[in-house]
């Protein structure tokens, strides 16, 4: 059953060939058998999931396609009555008192929640090593990282421990782990999906999205997740198109741009060859591939590592030990309670980013760092606007390398930051981006990123779907987890 895609499982459920309870128990058994070596879940909600599955089975006449489908949630989506840790000691004891809007929407659709997945602490990282609950392992090679920060969500899908999962993406945190684990992951346009109930990291960049085996599965999930929410004033009030119906539209005549800056100096030659093969498939479908330029692309990481920490330093000031979360033992006074609770409960990378952000916003440095980074953000956004005057989508590798070894980059934060070179500009501009598997290099997955204009998720989902009709890379399962 776990070898079926979400769309195939939905058909089998609707035809009563399988029940949601059977499917859910099957995944729970697989989590029990395999997650010991992967560490992709922080919390498994076995009993609750089986209960939800029974309800879905009892209420089959209702029509949501997702009804009875078992998925996993990154552990930063608040789900009422459930531990929601954000991978941090700070929230180890936090039980969310409400549902995130996307969680509520999925529950209303009858989705079964298998559990909450492991992640870099507060979503700050590219390797899922910084979790308070230990590093997540890549199912293609358990000595390697799965990427991050949504590493647990990517691994749960790659090892077929869940039908699909939800992740969040601030600088590449859905797309990069999707690439490194060989699955499909979509970061929607900023504002397409409500952020209410998603624990905040950098609020002008954060966006939740689906991670699944196929682009079609992502389309089903996005269909339910997208839309305006009164509780998130940045969620945009635009109609939600029929993403699933649109998948079958032709891609003939679509213009796809390859930014020359991403293919210059130092791109791994095998990754370049995989991209070349993928382009040939798209060309055979009638797409036109042409070179474009994103002249300021290489400044994206620098601007991001000012803007994201600045927003994080503000967002994370709420963790003070007063109302929820970790409080230190026997505080001397109020100041001691604040600072010692924070110092004892935040991990190293979180503290680094809070301190960089605090510095960038402090008197005397605000213009030199924060305002300058925002100006570069404008340049990067303008580069994409100019590109979309000429093309329908922008194509590149998702990540500069395949999955790296655990501990390989954890000593040097800046080296780690560079693994998001192709994804970060998309967040700064607020555009939608998607990663699809395009093959294996020495047994490790390679991903291709497709980016489209604002609210044009249909374009990249369609391209990815049509590509997946011609290829089977997305259906490969790591041998130990077949």
């Amino acid at each position, binding site marked *: 059953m776990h070898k079926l895609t979400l769309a195939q499982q939905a058909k089998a459920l609707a035809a009563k060939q399988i029940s949601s309870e059977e499917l859910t128990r099957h995944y729970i058994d697989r989590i029990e058998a395999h997650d010991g070596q992967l560490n992709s879940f922080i919390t498994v909600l076995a009993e609750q999931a089986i209960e939800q599955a029974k309800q879905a089975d009892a209420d089959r006449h209702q029509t949501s396609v997702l009804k009875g489908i078992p998925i996993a949630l990154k552990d930063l989506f608040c789900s009422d009555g459930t531990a929601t840790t954000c991978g941090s000691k700070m929230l180890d004891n936090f039980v969310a008192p409400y549902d995130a809007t996307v969680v509520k929407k999925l529950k209303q659709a009858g989705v079964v929640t298998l559990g909450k997945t492991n992640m870099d602490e507060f979503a700050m990282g590219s390797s899922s090593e910084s979790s308070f609950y230990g590093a997540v392992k890549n199912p293609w090679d358990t000595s390697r990282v799965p990427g991050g920060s949504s590493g647990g969500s990517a691994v749960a899908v790659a090892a077929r421990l869940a039908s699909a999962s939800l992740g969040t993406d601030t600088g590449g945190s859905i797309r990069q782990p999707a690439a490194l684990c060989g699955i499909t992951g979509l970061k929607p346009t900023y504002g397409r999906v409500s952020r209410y109930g998603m624990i905040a990291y950098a609020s002008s960049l954060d966006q939740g999205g689906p991670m699944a085996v196929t682009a079609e599965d992502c389309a089903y999930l996005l269909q339910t997740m997208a839309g305006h929410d009164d509780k998130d004033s940045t969620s945009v009030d635009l109609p939600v198109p029929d993403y699933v119906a649109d998948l079958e539209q032709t891609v003939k005549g679509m213009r796809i741009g390859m930014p020359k800056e991403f293919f210059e100096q130092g791109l791994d030659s095998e990754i370049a060859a995989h991209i070349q093969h993928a382009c040939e498939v798209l060309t055979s479908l009638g797409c036109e591939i042409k070179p474009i330029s994103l002249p300021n692309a290489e400044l994206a990481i*620098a601007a991001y590592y000012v803007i994201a920490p600045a927003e994080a330093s503000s967002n994370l000031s709420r963790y003070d030990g007063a*109302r929820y979360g970790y409080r230190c033992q026997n505080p001397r006074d109020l100041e001691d309670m604040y600072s010692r609770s924070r110092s004892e409960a935040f991990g190293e990378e979180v503290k680094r980013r809070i*301190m960089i952000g605090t510095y960038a916003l402090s008197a005397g440095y605000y213009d030199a760092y924060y305002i300058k980074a925002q100006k570069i953000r404008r*340049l990067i956004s303008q580069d994409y606007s100019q590109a979309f005057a000429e093309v329908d989508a922008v194509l590149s590798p998702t990540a500069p390398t395949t999955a790296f070894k655990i501990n390989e980059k954890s000593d040097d934060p800046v080296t780690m930051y560079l693994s998001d070179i192709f994804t970060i500009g998309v967040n700064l501009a607020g555009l939608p981006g998607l990663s699809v598997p395009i093959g294996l290099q020495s047994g490790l997955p390679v991903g291709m990123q497709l980016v489209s204009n604002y609210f044009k998720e249909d374009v990249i989902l369609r391209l990815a779907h049509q590509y997946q009709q011609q290829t089977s890379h997305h259906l490969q399962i790591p041998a130990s987890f077949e």
Partner: protein
Amino acid sequence: MALTNDDVLYIAKLANLQLGDSQVYQYKRELTRILDFVEQMNSVNVDHVEPMAHPQEMMQPLRADVITEFNQRAKFQAIAPATQDGLYLVPKVIE
């Protein structure tokens, strides 16, 4: 941009973080490395570029001024470190 020990201690104070002596050295090294890296922002002239704070530059929407949230104090305080009589308890501020 090389930070000094005092810079690091000042930033930590602003961020409400306590650092041990060995950590001051460690953060000085790491934060300096990050700041050196972001220096590459200076390679482009942005004098006449408007800062971009947000991907959506539309007006923020307004809504009717009606109550949408209801009292859930007991539920919220169930996850608090310390409460009494509906109040959050913190160390004494005034003797």
